[in-house]
């Protein structure tokens, strides 16, 4: 028998087994409309009490600065923390399997009715709304972040590189990120 690690218990002292990981992440996947970030906090911190608010924020923050999908990264890190590498795989499967099946079902149903003019018109509207969602998400983040002027300048410069100049994503990220890190260090040194 594997000895139970301290970190594989919830705040209530319940063991966080592979089954518990799978069910928890499946719940986040299935209830996560428009992205998983909001529901993930609710499930992890409030409902299943796997970890404290502070611990969760620091794991999510780490998921955000690493490359790749931030929720995917968070899932990998939590799975490993509670149940090792197998935990990562189980958690990720829980998160992805059901939503993928639902998405494919939705796509198949849509394709069957795609030639109907009402469906076409509704899809154009839904497509426009989906683009608006992303703009709204960015604006909401911008409001919550309360950026310092130098960081606001980098946000706007990045926006211009992508949306106006249409420069390739990879180049923009690889140039702007180090510049912004350097500017952050430089501005801190001037303050101190």
């Amino acid at each position, binding site marked *: 028998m594997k000895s139970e690690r301290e970190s594989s218990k919830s705040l209530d002292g319940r063991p966080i087994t592979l089954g518990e990981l799978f069910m928890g992440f499946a719940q986040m996947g299935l209830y996560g409309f428009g992205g998983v970030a909001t529901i993930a906090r609710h499930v992890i911190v409030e409902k299943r009490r796997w970890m404290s608010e502070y611990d969760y924020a620091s794991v999510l923050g780490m998921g955000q600065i690493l490359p790749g999908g931030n929720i995917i990264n968070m899932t*990998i890190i939590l799975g490993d923390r509670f149940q090792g590498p197998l935990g990562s795989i189980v958690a990720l499967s829980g998160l992805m399997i059901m939503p993928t099946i639902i998405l494919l079902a939705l796509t198949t149903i849509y394709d069957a009715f795609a030639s109907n003019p009402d469906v076409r018109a509704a899809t154009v509207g839904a497509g426009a709304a989906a683009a608006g969602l992303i703009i709204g998400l960015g604006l909401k983040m911008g409001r919550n972040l309360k950026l310092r002027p130098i960081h606001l300048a980098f946000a706007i410069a990045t926006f211009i590189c992508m949306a106006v100049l249409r420069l390739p994503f990879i180049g923009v990220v690889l140039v702007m990120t180090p510049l912004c890190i350097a500017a952050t260090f430089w501005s801190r040194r001037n303050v101190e």
Partner: protein
Amino acid sequence: MWSDDPIVKLALAFGALSLVSVGGAPAMMPEIHRLAVVVNGWHTNAEFARDMALAQSAPGPNFMMISLVGWRVAGFPGLMAATLAAIIPSSIIAFIVGRLYTRFSQKDWFNVARSALPPIVLGLIVASGVVTAGAAVSGAIGFGIVILSAAIVALTSRNPLVAIGAGALIGLIAGRLGFL
């Protein structure tokens, strides 16, 4: 040649994207658009917007737009290739850093570097919405829906599905009235 195989193209494109992307799926969207529409011609602009609406209507990570692109290009093998290519490289990094994190998070330089990332992510996300809207939307009604939906998300904490539903309904009515 092997590199003309759509499965190989999907895997290479999304594997590379996963390694440099910061800010998650919304920030990746312009690059997914560029790969799928501009570089490889897998989708038209309208098809891309349609699939984005489908991906947003289903529950689960926004990341699944990548799975759907793979599905459109090469069915189930395409879906697996695109999804796994986008997950595995970045997950290996996350796994390693996850184990080192406690050591890093006490270092000052790490926290300063970390504070420099949100602005870049923010610029990428807003650009992403604007690029997709510009490519897929035309006419006053279309742009009206974009603004309405952005406002619903930015100003309220409603389920984003409400915005998709409202957009679909306005589109349907406008279509019936002959405005679309």
